């Protein structure tokens, strides 16, 4: 457990003076995500440790370099967890990288995303200023919500030093059931159950089956299983973990992996040149994976027609744009915000968009 904040701050100040770009690295488990960054590595891995954990407050404050596994163990001792169920994509995964990517797991539609559980943070902006935003309490509307703005900003606005998060208790019982269904049928079925108060905490479809995870008290789980029907899926625990970590056989493919973020009930219509088996549907329909060599513009046009966005999640050409383009006025705001946090353009320049 080491506090490297002073050193990190000095590094950023120096880099700013010389206008030397930096490449911020946590556990390096998500090095493949976003665009390629040219810059001197700024490692957060050793800036780690749990700073405060109050189970009764449902809050946790940790240094950015703290491993997800360390956090999970500490929470587990009090039968609590990170509600957004973050994927690790590698044992070295840190909370800082997770928050910078805004990565959430299968529970996301029902519990919320990484950004939803962000309460506060300390950061170093590109001017080398150490800043504190938000707090360690659950409600806070003092000042602009910079803490949530940091989530998903891929290190382009500031170096996350530590984060305060809301945590929640573990659910007691958990079961997974499977029903045979095509993608189109799956979307209809998932939408139907999403509109009921049953304690469903994950839904996905591989095009052959639709899977439901139900979590709650024992009696609630038993009853929900009966209502949803289908067969009990013994490998449920592994299924959701493998889906979260992209370790299902589906993900074993060298082609670019697209992530489509869509309204959950958007109809399933495949694209020209795409096989049904190139799809996988998660988040109850709201997150759809596609393995394809089609260009981003084509997939994005498709996603846009359904009311969402498409981005290349993995295996793309990292010199090109990886994320759905932003409308011009929104991109202009991004650039002005970037300039306000990082006027020397040294923090993860180009990791999100070429011009950011």
């Amino acid at each position, binding site marked *: 457990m080491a506090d490297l904040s002073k050193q990190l701050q000095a590094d950023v100040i120096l880099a700013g003076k010389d206008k030397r770009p930096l490449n911020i690295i946590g556990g390096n488990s998500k090095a493949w995500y976003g665009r390629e960054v040219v810059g001197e590595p700024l490692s957060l891995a050793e800036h780690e440790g749990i700073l405060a954990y109050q189970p009764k407050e449902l809050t946790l404050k940790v240094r950015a370099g703290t491993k997800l596994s360390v956090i999970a163990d500490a929470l587990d001792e009090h039968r609590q967890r990170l509600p957004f169920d973050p994927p690790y994509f590698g044992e070295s995964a840190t909370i800082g990288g997770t928050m910078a990517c*805004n990565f959430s797991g299968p529970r996301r539609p029902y519990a919320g995303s990484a950004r939803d559980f962000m309460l506060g943070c300390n950061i170093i902006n590109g001017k080398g200023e150490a800043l504190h935003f938000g707090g360690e309490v659950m409600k806070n509307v003092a000042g*602009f919500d910079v803490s949530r703005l940091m989530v998903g900003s891929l290190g382009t606005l500031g170096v996350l030093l530590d984060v305060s998060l809301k945590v929640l208790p573990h659910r*007691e019982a958990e079961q997974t059931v499977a029903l045979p269904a095509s993608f189109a049928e799956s979307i209809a079925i998932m939408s139907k159950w999403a509109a009921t108060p049953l304690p469903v905490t994950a839904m996905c479809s591989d095009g052959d089956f639709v899977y439901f995870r139900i979590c709650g008290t024992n009696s609630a789980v038993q009853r929900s299983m009966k209502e949803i029907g289908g067969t009990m899926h013994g490998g449920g625990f592994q299924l959701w973990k493998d889906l979260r970590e992209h370790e299902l056989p589906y993900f074993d493919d060298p082609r670019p992996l697209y992530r489509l973020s869509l309204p959950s009930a958007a109809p399933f219509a495949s694209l020209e040149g795409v096989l049904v088996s190139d799809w996988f549907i998660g988040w109850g329909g709201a997150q759809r994976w596609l393995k394809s060599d089609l260009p981003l513009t084509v997939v994005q046009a498709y996603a846009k027609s359904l009311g969402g966005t498409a981005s290349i999640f993995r295996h793309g050409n990292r010199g090109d744009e990886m994320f759905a383009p932003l409308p011009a006025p929104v991109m202009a705001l991004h650039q002005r915000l970037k300039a306000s946090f990082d006027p020397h353009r040294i923090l993860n320049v180009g990791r999100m968009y070429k011009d950011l």
Partner: protein
Amino acid sequence: MDSKQQQIIIDLQAILPAASLLTSKEALTPYECDGLSIHKGLPLAVALPETLAQAQAIVRSCTKAKVPIISRGAGTGLAGGAMPTQGAVVLSLAKFNEILEIDEHNLTATVQPGVRNLVISQAVAHLNLYYAPDPSSQIACTIGGNVAENSGGVHCLKYGLTVHNVLGLKILGIDGEIFELGGKALDNVGYDLLALMHGSEGLLGIVVEVTVKLLPKPELAQVVLAAFDDVEKAGQSVGDIIAAGIVPAGLEMMDALAIQAAEAYAHVGYPINAQAIVLCEVDGTTNSVADYIARVEKVLHEAGATEVRTSQDEVQRLQFWAGRKAAFPAVGRLAPDYYCMDGTIPKAKLPEVLKQISVWSEAFGLPVANVFHAGDGNMHPLILYDANKAGELKKTEAFGQKILELCVQVGGTITGEHGVGVEKLDAMCVQFGAAELSQFLAIKDAFDADGLLNPGKAVPSLHRCAELGRMHVHNGQLPHPELERF
């Protein structure tokens, strides 16, 4: 009125029908303040557009003439966020009150900003859906105002604040252009400007359309009411419930004065001799509610509750809540005026903070009733005073400022849900340093370089904080309270 002001009135007259533009003193007076009536001001004009084209034209005219714009929903804000300032145009969104779409497949509703909070839930009730955030002002406050304040309600411990329940926004920027953030999908690309807009108090853009998430109504909700003979024990029980692995839908607390006031007002059978009550609601499927209610009752007994009652039907559940929800008006009958604070603290600090508040209450000679979103640590001490007594308002504000400073000291924040507005500008100087405030001002600049959107609210100038520092604001006394307070 100078010539610039005369010109903007002429411009607005060309955009709006006569009835949608208010300029006379009598017509402007109803807009002189929001829910925080101790801060008042008269604007140059109030514009009530009905179409986006009109709203855009108004913004363009104001931008060209460099006239400030103050967005306004229902004016129920409690921090002076929508309070007019001299020479500004108030842009009322009240006429944008249509529900544009209810999408029962994607579980969303797209509404105009002037739609009232409760109306959304009413409009989708037949589908067994609802919109979760439920500020006590929900019959009156607008969804646009909710976004601008990131409002909470008694159910936000489990269901989150406004920011957790909004999927998309349409924003009218200061250049008169409209842009979209989010939509009906869950995660978006780029920076989370959707989150940034929440709680930005009308400083970054004008919310002209909101897409909210709808939730299935829980099958059953039950609330447990526990009475305590000691506030500390009640506070302790709140942490015990959480530690037992229960996430209540609502977890509220009231102290003796608040209980007595609420009971006298609402006649709901609250135990008037109790020092504190805890209200704990659990919702979900019928089976899980039964399981959890049994556990909540057990925890409350073990925490030393003198009485534990559980609602047996929907009528009784609403009755248990009616007292809590009417707490503000009820306390309002105890004194000519009350001043509502909104600090948030770690729950464990509750006994300490309540004790200190009661010591100060004695010292200032001002009674305090405490209403508390206990589950998420959001306190609402209500300071009772009489504005007609010379010096009492000043004393009250000084007391309030001390409470906010204490909240920051124990690791909390100056505002949990009501916002900064004009009211807490000084407290912002306590919570943030110059570097953070500069970053806030830079963000403001990125959206609104000329500083025309609700200027002078939410984020204090560095100058103001520096002045306060020199003048020892920590004693809660300002030599020139009229300065920059309009």
